[in-house]
């Protein structure tokens, strides 16, 4: 009799463990180091006014045109870092670790490691509720994930008001960022969909691929502040939006339509290409930094 009771309990316990493990199963191995490939042009931050590929509201455009890169020289802003979106917009790879419950061995969270100017992102996988609307908003935000359709889906909320591009394109604390992580062999493709009811007419959608690295990546680096020409108490560097001296720099360098560089919605669709077909004049042949190693556009002298 005792053997029967013990046996049943063992079977029930076994079933619970197996079923729990089934529900928690990852659909691919996300953990590891994922190296950047550099084959996609998503940073758009080499010249001060480059809003290509964005659908901005007028308010966002005005805010962006008032931004002066020198703000980052202010000692109190040097280590402010960039928001969650910089995971795909920045140049670094991803170092993914996981944290498991020591009792159930279920995945509690994944962590994408920090860079020098980007906070780590924790993707909570344990179904915990989001904080209240008025909870602390941070650069990294609060991210909850789940496995869905063969990929990892996650949503980031509670982001601190900041920027979605290093050229000063703003993002409010009402923004949400949806992520999809797809793994195909050694290639991890990360899809970002950023939505902002104030500054984006349509979501910013960026997809960027990474390759599994046999060498562990570690981009952690201490941010050290120093004097860069601005004293505490100095005014915040900025431009009047209609007097930004760099507004046409990118336009002229590549002979691009101004409305495309300034992030108008229509420029994201094929119809726009047909619209400018008869007026676009290609720039002169490339003579400097033309190849794969020259991944960044020429800086002004």
């Amino acid at each position, binding site marked *: 009799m005792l053997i029967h009771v013990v046996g049943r309990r063992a079977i029930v316990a076994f079933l619970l463990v197996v079923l729990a493990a089934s529900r928690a*199963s990852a659909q691919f191995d996300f953990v590891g180091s994922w190296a950047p*490939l550099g*084959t996609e042009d998503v940073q758009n931050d080499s010249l001060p006014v480059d809003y290509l590929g964005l659908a901005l509201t007028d308010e966002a455009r005005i805010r962006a045109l008032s931004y002066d890169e020198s703000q980052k020289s202010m000692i109190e802003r040097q280590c402010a870092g960039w928001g969650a979106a910089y995971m795909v917009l920045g140049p670094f790879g991803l170092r993914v670790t996981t944290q498991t419950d020591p009792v159930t061995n279920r995945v509690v969270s994944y962590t994408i490691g920090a860079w020098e100017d980007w906070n780590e992102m924790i993707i909570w996988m344990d179904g915990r509720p989001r904080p209240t609307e008025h909870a602390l908003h941070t650069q990294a935000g609060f991210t909850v994930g789940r496995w869905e359709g063969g990929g990892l889906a996650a949503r980031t909320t509670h982001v601190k008001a900041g920027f979605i591009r290093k050229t000063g394109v703003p993002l409010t604390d009402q923004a949400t960022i949806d992520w999809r992580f797809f793994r195909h062999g050694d290639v991890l*493709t990360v899809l970002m969909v950023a939505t902002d009811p104030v500054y984006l007419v349509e979501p910013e959608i960026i997809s960027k691929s990474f390759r599994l690295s046999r060498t562990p990546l570690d981009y952690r680096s201490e941010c050290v502040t120093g004097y860069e020409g601005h004293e505490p108490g100095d005014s915040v560097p900025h431009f009047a939006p209609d007097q930004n001296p760099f507004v046409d720099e990118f336009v002229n360098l590549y002979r691009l339509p101004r409305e495309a560089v300034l992030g108008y919605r229509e420029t994201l*669709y094929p119809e726009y290409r047909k619209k400018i077909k008869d007026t*676009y004049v290609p720039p002169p042949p490339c003579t400097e930094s033309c*190849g*794969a190693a020259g991944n960044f556009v020429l800086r002004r002298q």
Partner: protein
Amino acid sequence: MRTALVMALVIALAGPTTSRAQQRGGAAAGEAQGRQPAASSRSARDAAPIDLTGYWVSYVTENWRYRMVTPAKGEYRRIPASPAAVPLINAWDPAADERAGNQCKSYGAGNIMSVPGRLHITWQDADTLRIDADAGTQTRLIQFSPRASAPAPRSWQGESTATWEPATGGGSLRVVTSNLLAGYLRKNGVPYSERTTVTEHFDITSLPDGSKLLLVTTIVEDPLYLTGPYIVSPHFKKEADGSKWEPTPCSSTW
């Protein structure tokens, strides 16, 4: 009670077995990890874990300067071009391409998904997916069953074979294309050779407004003109109908 426990045990074991199968990594390079083998008895159309059919429009939020306009001659930033490719890049002559009837070189399978335009995806038959692109008026036929006939002549779109990679609640389409005519990775003449293989992974996801997004992770490998894989991931929004479908001919300059 004992019978019920045994049955429950069987069911439970069946679940984790599937999960374990999903967690096994593909042995071959490019084989997606965590995918279940497709059922072989059903047609590809019946076995489809995702629905790719319909009209899709390019949403050009990245690589804008290389896709929406023709970049400067000689520029190949972000493409791992080999030394053998550089003279060809610098010798790009669109007028000569036009005269030679090669105005479709930038519309081949190595680049067509990055050309801004619309896709119309349909089933040509139960085992052939058809992708029409209005930019350049190109057609790709994606075969799920091996073809018994002799290889066709090389073409801009080459020969594509596909496999479904189902996963819990969805899946992905993997397409491998070869037998290509030499073409361009960009409008300004960055070349890929006839020896190129293009591997694509089609994934679908939902946007916050409930609409669908198609993501095509594209891996171009060319032992002649590339020093490593060239990987891009153009994406497309689903459209309700074909009212904006507008086929246009190939152009070597635009």
